[in-house]
């Protein structure tokens, strides 16, 4: 593991948080999950969001969440080509560029990732391939819990912890405390169970 360049990486990360806040607004991700699922929802059920010119947002919804804050989310669902949505869509592009740029340099480190087909010497591969559900269901359930919790808290690691703490928002500290109070024991217990089963996570 690299031990020297962690500060350089931290400076890059911190600069990005700051630049986003300076130029447009602090980074945030999880709201856009509500927007995208709302786009699908309102495509299947067009009546869920309707136009309402008496409101500043111009929209109202029969769903209490989309209707919240004068129909702000309803508006974003109907007009997704805005800063917040495109910001999130651009994240994988940046990650892909970073992946390609560092690919050769960090070939060894990349082998650490969970994508098992990258590591041919792992004999467990055929068994896991048979069981797609077992391989991907945890990620699906994990993602479900993450976004259900993040929407309830009105923010995720990006909006609450990184941007929130940067700005001195009390909610960011409270969210971070609640998250780590559960995430650390959960990760340790699941890690121990994996170990006792002899499975290398």
């Amino acid at each position, binding site marked *: 593991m690299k031990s020297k360049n962690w500060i350089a990486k*931290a400076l890059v*990360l*911190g600069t990005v948080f*700051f630049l986003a*806040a*300076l*130029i447009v607004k602090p980074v*945030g991700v999880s709201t856009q999950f*509500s927007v995208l699922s709302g786009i699908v*929802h309102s495509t299947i059920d067009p009546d869920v969001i309707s136009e309402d010119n008496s409101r500043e947002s111009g929209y109202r919804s029969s*769903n*209490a969440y989309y209707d*919240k804050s004068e129909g702000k989310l309803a508006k974003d669902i109907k007009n997704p080509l805005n800063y917040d949505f*495109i*910001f999130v869509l*651009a*994240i*994988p*592009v*940046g*990650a892909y*560029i*970073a992946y390609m740029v560092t690919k050769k340099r960090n070939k060894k480190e990349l082998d*650490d*990732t969970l*994508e098992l087909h*990258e590591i041919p010497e792992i004999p467990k591969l055929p068994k896991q391939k048979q069981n797609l559900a077992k391989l991907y269901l945890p*990620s*699906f359930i*994990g*993602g*479900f819990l*993450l*976004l*259900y*919790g*993040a929407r*309830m*808290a*009105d923010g*995720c*690691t*990006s909006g609450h912890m*990184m*941007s929130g*703490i*940067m700005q*001195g*928002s009390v*909610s960011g500290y*409270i*969210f971070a*405390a*609640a*998250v780590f109070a*559960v995430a650390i024991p*959960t*990760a340790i217990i699941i890690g121990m169970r994996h*170990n006792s089963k002899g499975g290398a*996570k």
Partner: protein
Amino acid sequence: MEILLAIILGGLFGFALYLVGASNPKKLLSMLRLQDLSLMKIIVFGIGFSSVLLSIAIALGIFNISHLSIKSTHLGVVVGGLIFGFGFGSVGTCPGTCVAATGTNGIRKAIAAVIGGLVGAFAFSLTYGFWKNTGLFKAMDLGKLTLFNISDKFPSVFEIGYLGLLIVGILLMVVAYAIPLRGRKNKVN
């Protein structure tokens, strides 16, 4: 213009998340298991550094205060954080990092997490009315409370303005520096 900025800044964010290793669930999990704390150091230091930059920008008067986005503090933040913690601790990804990971070699699990996230967000949209009726968002309601009074729009705990952000920022950087790279020993890996 706004869209162009979204592409540039979103791209930079994704680039940074990959660069520091946050898009790799294995790294996040070994951080949460308190084994390899390098990512913890990076994130804490990064937040501290951004806080310092922000306080300097405010002091110089080049920061548009209306860009601040302070979220409300209420019981929903605690309960939501606890639920979030289960997901974070079990799969080692978060909403931002799983989106970033769809651009990397961890794409398959990342897509499973993103789809799970979309379903989770949708489930919350449908149950928001229920939670609202329980009073979850009204309990422990402190409003958009900040530690320091950097904007008159938000109530604050301490009246020392951007100086507070500078102090906290430096403190976070010191804490990050002090966190050991290696934490608990474990047979994993």
